[in-house]
Structure formats: C-alpha cells, structure tokens
C-alpha cells in the first residue's frame, strides 16, 4: 500500500528535474533559433534522438504516418496537431512518440495502441514555445521506427504557452467530457465501423515554469502523466504524457468500436491524483 504514493513522488521528482535541466539549457538558445526560418536536421534533434531512441534506426515515414500542424503557432498554448496512420503500409502501429524539439520538455507524449483498436487518426493540442520541429515517430509491429515532422513557427506577440484562466482550470480539475461523432459514411456497416471520439480532461497540465516569488524556486510541474482509454475489456490506447500537451488535454481519434460496449477512461497526474470515468457508447452521441 505504501509503495504506490512513494513511486508517484519519486516519478514527479525525476520529471521536475528533467524539466528544470532542460529549461536552463533551452531558454538561452531561443533567440538564436527564432531568427532562423528553417532548421535543418539539427543538433537538438540528434541529441534528443539518442536520449529517446538510443541507437535505433529511424526511417522516413513513407506514408506509414502523416502529420498536420499549422505553419505558425497562433496560440502558443494550443497548437492543434493531427496524426494519420496507415497500417496497410508497414503493418499495425504499436506506438507513437510525439516530440516538440525546442520545448523545455520535448517528449510531449507516448501513445500505445491496443492490438485490435484500429486507431487511424489521432488529434491533440500542444504547447510550442519556440520555432520548432514537431515530430511523430511511429513504431510498427516489426519493431521499425518511422518518423514524420512538421516545422512550426512560434507565435508572435504576447501569446504565451501558459494557462489563460488558472483558477477555472483548478476549480474543475479532473472533469471529463466525451463526445462521439457520427460515422463519416452514413451507410457504414454498423458492426465494424470506425467511430470518431473526443476525450477532454480538465487539468492545468501545468508546465512547472512558474517561479515562486518568495522562494525563487520553480513550482513543481503538475500534469497528466498517465491515461488509459478502453472499451469494455479491450484497450484502445494508453498515453504517457508530459507538459508539452496543452492544458485541458484533448484527444480526438478514430478507432474500431464495438457497438454497445462502454468507454472507460482512467487518468493519473503527477500529484498522484486519479480520475476515472465511464460512458455507455450508445447514449453519448453528439
């Protein structure tokens, strides 16, 4: 019984350290990168690559995975990113790692998909602090890695990757909302159709970059670190998240649904809080 909170705490500590180390390293670089409109395969990625994937070979995506991101991050706190998966190209995609090169904590999320989840599309929202590549690296069942990337220019003006309404975010912490969208093809086979769904979780997904005015220490980050979405007993996907996921984490995805079975969501954050919810699929329509 005691092991769990302790583990949560040490995990949080470790992540905060990573955030801090990266922060000190990343911010002084910002003006330099901000002056470049395009960055070639660069030192930042080379070092990230070995940190995250070791010496594994990463191939170009070649249609296995596609990414859509705006050229310019109009709102630095909410940058929509769409990922499209094509399992016919190289077999089923097991996992996807989403990375924002220049952010203080670059690995935004690692998604792992259930064996028969059939996820073909996943959209989420990111914080983008500086001119940066946003990358998605898919791992197929054969263990190969396939990468696709988009270059996103940082927003101009006073748009900051910070919470707009902090009290509101804390007041409704952990509240969830699930939307189910009607299938794109109205005559689709009811038993075997892709269902589009959107999961929203109220959470500041706090960057931890706030400095306590009195102590001059950074307030620890507070974010959703684990998420599991399943239908009945079947896993759709899990996410290990970081602070580069926007506040109020938001996931819109298409998957193979089994009509009639409940959707179940479990989330946990760095404070050790757990949030759970369950919806009958049929009644939670648009």
């Amino acid at each position, binding site marked *: 019984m005691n092991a769990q909170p302790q583990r949560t705490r040490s995990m949080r500590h470790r992540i905060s350290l990573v955030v801090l180390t990266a922060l000190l390293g990343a*911010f002084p670089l*910002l*003006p330099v990168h*901000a*002056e470049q409109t395009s960055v070639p395969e660069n030192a930042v990625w080379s070092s990230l690559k070995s940190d995250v994937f070791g010496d594994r070979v990463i191939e170009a995506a070649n249609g296995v995975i596609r990414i*859509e991101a*705006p050229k310019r991050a*109009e*709102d630095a706190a*909410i940058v*929509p990113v*769409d990922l499209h998966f094509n399992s016919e190209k190289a077999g089923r995609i097991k996992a996807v790692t989403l990375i924002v090169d220049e952010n203080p904590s670059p690995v935004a999320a690692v998604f792992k998909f259930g064996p028969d989840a059939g996820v073909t599309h996943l*959209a989420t*929202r990111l914080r983008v*602090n*500086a001119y940066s590549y946003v990358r998605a690296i898919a791992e197929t069942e054969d263990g190969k890695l396939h990468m696709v990337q988009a270059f996103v220019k*940082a*927003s*101009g*003006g*006073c*748009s*900051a*990757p*910070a*919470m*707009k*309404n*902090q*009290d*509101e975010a804390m007041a409704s912490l952990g509240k969830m*909302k699930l*939307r189910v*969208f*009607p299938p794109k093809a109205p005559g689709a086979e009811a038993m075997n159709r892709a269902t589009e769904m959107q999961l*929203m979780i*109220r959470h500041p997904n706090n*960057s931890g*970059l*706030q*400095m*306590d*005015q009195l102590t001059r220490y950074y307030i620890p980050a507070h974010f959703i670190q684990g998420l599991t979405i399943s239908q009945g007993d079947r896993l759709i996907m899990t996410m290990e998240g970081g602070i580069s996921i*926007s506040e*109020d984490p*938001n996931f*819109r995805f298409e998957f193979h649904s089994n009509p009639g079975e409940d959707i179940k969501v479990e989330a946990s954050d760095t404070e050790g809080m757990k949030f759970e919810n369950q919806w009958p699929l049929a009644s939670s329509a*648009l």
Partner: protein
Amino acid sequence: MLTGLKTFSRRTILKQGKAAIAGVLSCRVLPPGPVFAAGGVLPVRQVADGIFAFAGTDALMTDANRGEICNVGFVIGGDGVAVIDSGGSVAEGRALIAAIRAVTDKPIAYLINTHMHPDHCFGNAAFEGTGAVLVGHHNLPRALASRGEFYLSSYRESMGEALMREIRIIPPTKLINDEENLDLGGRIIRLKAWKPAHTDNDLTVLDEKTGVLFTGDLCFIRHLPTLDGSLTGWIAQLEALKAIRAKIAVPGHGPVPAKWPDALEDERRYFEVLTHDIRQAIAAGVPLAMAIRTAAESERGNWHLFDAYNVRNATAAYAELEWE
C-alpha cells in the same frame, strides 16, 4: 536604411510638434497622431483636467516603434501622480516620465499596471527610483511569474537586443482584490479588479472628478481585441463595464479619448460573431484546426491586425467554448 529613414522622420515630426507648441499653445500638449517619441518626451495629450494620455500605434511591438503600441497615461492629483501602464519598453517608460515632468513636478505616487501584457508593463523598470508604488490585480504576480521569462525571450526577435537588454519583469507590490480607491490629494481614482476577461488580471482606473476611465485592454477600438483570459467572462462583464459612470475612456488600444460606453460596441459585436461561429462549429463536430480558419471572418474589414490575432482568438475561444 529603412530604420534610419523612420528615425529621421520621427525626429522631424517631434521637432515640428515642439515648434507648434512653442508658437501656438500655452499648455504643454503635443498634437495627436501616430507619433513615436524618438527622443525623450512621449507625445501625450490632455484628455481632461489633469489627465494626459498617449495613443499607441496599431501595430506589433518592434524596435522601430519601441513597443509603443498601447495607450498609456497619467492622472495628476494635489499630492502626486498616478501613472497608468508603463509602455512596451524602458525607453517608452522613460519618455512617459519625461512627459509627466513636462507638466508637473509632483512626485509619481503610483504606477498602475492594467494587466500582464508586455506592451503595458515592459516599461516598469523606468519607474524604479521614482518612489512609485507598483499596483496591480491580485492575479498579476502569478501571471507574470508564469509568463515573464517567456515574454523576455519571445520579444527579443522583434524588439531587438538594444531595447530588450534593460527590460525586466517587475511585479506589483500593492495588489487590488476587488475595488479600491487611491487618494492622489483632492482627487480620488477608483481601481477595480475584474474577473477573467481579456486576461485573468485586468484592472480599470476611473477618475471620479472628470469621469475619465482607463479601461486597460478590457476595451479595444480599431485594433482587434486579443483574447488571453476568458471570452465568456469578457462578454459577461460587458454590462458591468458599460454601467461604469464615465464620460470618456482611454481604451487599451485605439483612439484617445473615446466616448463611453459607445467605445465597447465594436468589440461586443466581434465577440458575438466569434462566439456564434465557434459554437456553431463545435455543435457540428468541426475540429478545432478547421474551425479556426473561418471563424469571425466576416469581421475582417472592421479591424486593424485581424490577421495577427483572429486565428489565435478563435483557437482560445474554441478551447473554452467546447466545455459548455
């Protein structure tokens, strides 16, 4: 070359302004217009008895305009002066102090920041040593703590090293929780802290004697409003704003002065259109990335800087309204 030219023409304008004052006016007020204070004195104008304001230009902050894009001003009381916003650079802050010194010798008692945005508070450092007490919304220190470092690095590209070097994030020490009066000596100004709207740290300043309201960025005219707090909160508080018994306003951006409460009409209409379009998209299941491309497009012709801020506003609006 271009910068040099602009500097030259700004100097010329300023010189002409000074000549006009010397020749025609007895009070020391510079003529209105998109004039940058290339030299030492911010070209403020008198909007009421003892109240002066500078009209910023509708632009993004750059080294060429020294960050002088928002409206700033000051109120002179019997004992001291209250300054409303310090401007977008320490250079502008100093030019504002020079403008104050051109009309009064009274001490600067308060520097009031209407909210967290850099165009309103990057000039704070200029007021160190004046003895002014820095005043802000109770949420302002927290907002600056989470954004300050980011602002300092993100503006480096457009503002340039020379201006950025001396800019520091200085949070307020006197915090306003709800409403509070400041006595400037025979002159009361009323400060009000608002619920999340433009930001979560908006403050307005009303001079009771003349009915001049400094709205901060709760009121935008001509310059597209920017949304960094709560759209529904802003809309919900428009009635309370409107009910403030002021005669004229110094809006955060736009013409100085403006008729009150008519000054709120344009932004009210924009919010209505934006809210309508985004709500409709959400109800129809249109994803954020797609909805923000067309939302409030019908408002394009009514505003300056529409392209700079509308998609950002639509993004923030979508993320807020989908929780309804």
